[in-house]
C-alpha cells in the first residue's frame, strides 16, 4: 500500500496542481529548445530527398503531428478507462484537456498532408483508407468535445464522454494498419516497422527530435489546460484560494518595488 501513496497523492487535484506548477516552467523551456533544434535541423541542415526534392521536408511537421493525433487519443482513452473504473476525477479533467489538443494535431496532419499531396500525388484529397480513418479521428475528437458541451450535469458528463472515447479507440489500430490491410494511395510506414527504417539517418534524427518535441509540447499543453480546469472546478476550496492569493502577493511584491 505504501508504494501507492505518491500515486494516490498525484491523483488528488491539489497535489496534481502543485506537481504540474513545479515542472511546467522546465518542461516549457525544454520543449522549446527541442522543437527549435529539430525544426532548424529538419528544414535547413537535413539533405534534400532524391525523389521529392525539398517538398519532403513537410514530414518534419506532418509525421509528428499524425503520431501525436493518435497518441493523444490513446492517452485520452487510458484516462477515460481509469476514470470509469476507479472514478479518479483528475483523469476526467486530463482527458477533457487533451481533446482540443488532439483535434489540433489531427487537423495539422490532415492539412500538411493535403498540401504535400497536391504536387506529389497530383491531388489534395483521396478517399483512401488512411486519409478517411484519420478524418474519422478528427470527427471523434469533435464528437467528444461536443458531447461534453451538451451535458450540463458534471457526473453524467464525465461518464458519457469517457464511454464515447472508449468506443472510438477502435479507430486507432485501423488508422495504423490501414496502409498494410488495404491498397492505399498513402505510402506505408517508414519507421514503425520491423525491419530497419526506410528513411536515411540524416533525415531520421531530426524527425525523431521533432517527434519528441511534439510529445513534450502535448504534455505541456495538456498539463497547462488541466491546471486551468482544476482552478475552474476547485475555485471555492480553501487550498486553491490560499495558493492563488500567495501567487498574487509574490507577483505584486516583484513588480511593485
Amino acid at each position, binding site marked *: 500500500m505504501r508504494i501507492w501513496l505518491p500515486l494516490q497523492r498525484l491523483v488528488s487535484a491539489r497535489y496534481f496542481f502543485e506537481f504540474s506548477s513545479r515542472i511546467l516552467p522546465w518542461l516549457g523551456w525544454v520543449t522549446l529548445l527541442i522543437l527549435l533544434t529539430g525544426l532548424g535541423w529538419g528544414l535547413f541542415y537535413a*539533405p*534534400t*530527398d*532524391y*525523389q*521529392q526534392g525539398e*517538398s*519532403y521536408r513537410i*514530414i518534419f511537421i506532418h509525421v509528428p503531428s499524425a503520431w501525436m493525433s493518435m497518441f493523444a487519443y490513446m492517452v485520452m482513452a487510458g484516462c477515460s*478507462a481509469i476514470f*470509469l*473504473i*476507479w*472514478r479518479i476525477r483528475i483523469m476526467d479533467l486530463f482527458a477533457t484537456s487533451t481533446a482540443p489538443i488532439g483535434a489540433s494535431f489531427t487537423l495539422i496532419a490532415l492539412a500538411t498532408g493535403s498540401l504535400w499531396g497536391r*504536387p*506529389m*500525388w*497530383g*491531388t489534395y484529397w*483521396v*478517399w*483512401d*483508407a488512411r486519409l478517411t480513418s484519420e478524418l474519422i479521428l478528427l470527427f471523434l475528437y469533435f464528437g467528444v468535445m461536443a458531447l461534453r458541451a451538451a451535458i450540463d450535469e458534471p457526473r453524467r458528463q464525465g461518464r458519457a464522454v469517457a464511454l464515447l472515447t*472508449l*468506443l472510438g*479507440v*477502435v479507430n486507432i*489500430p*485501423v488508422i495504423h494498419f490501414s496502409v498494410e*490491410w*488495404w*491498397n*492505399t*494511395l498513402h*505510402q*506505408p*510506414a*517508414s519507421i514503425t516497422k520491423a525491419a530497419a527504417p*526506410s*528513411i*536515411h539517418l*540524416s*533525415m531520421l534524427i531530426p524527425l525523431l527530435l521533432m517527434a519528441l518535441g511534439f510529445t513534450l509540447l502535448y504534455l505541456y499543453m495538456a498539463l497547462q489546460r488541466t491546471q486551468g480546469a482544476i482552478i475552474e472546478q476547485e475555485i471555492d476550496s480553501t487550498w486553491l484560494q490560499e495558493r492563488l492569493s500567495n501567487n498574487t502577493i509574490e507577483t505584486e511584491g516583484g513588480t511593485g518595488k
Partner: protein
Amino acid sequence: MKTRHRRLLFITAGVLALTGATLLVLNAFRSNLVFFHTPTEVAEGTAPLEQLIRIGGMVEENSVEKTSESLHVSFRVTDFDHSITVTYDGVLPDLFREGQGVVAEGRLRDSVFVADRVLAKHDENYMPPEVAAMKLDEKAQNTPKKYYK
C-alpha cells in the same frame, strides 16, 4: 467481487468485443475498401471492369511514350505478373516516373485503360540523392555477379 473490479472487467470486455466486431466488419468489406485494383485482378477479371475503377502498380521501365505537340501520354502499369497499357491526356504529377508507383482512374476500353486522372504513389523510402546514387551503383555492380554464379 468489488464494484471497481466488475467495472474493470466490464470495460475491458466491452472494448475487446467492440474491437473484434469492427475488425470482422472491416474484413468483410475488405474488397470494397481498396483504393485501387492490380493489373492481375484486371487480367483475371476479378476487378469490377464495367464501372469507373482505379488501377495501381509500377510504371514499367521504358514504357512511357509522350508526344511533343499534346499532353497525350501512354505507359504500361505492371505488378510484375501482368501489365496494362494506360493512356492519359493531362498533366502528370511531379513524382510520376518510370519504376515508381502510380494509380490511374478511368475505364478499360478494348484492353487499353483510358485514364481520367493519374496519381503518383510515393513509396516509404526517404534518402539524400548521393545515397540513392550509391544504391544504384551497388545494384549495377551486383547484377553481373549473379550471371557468373
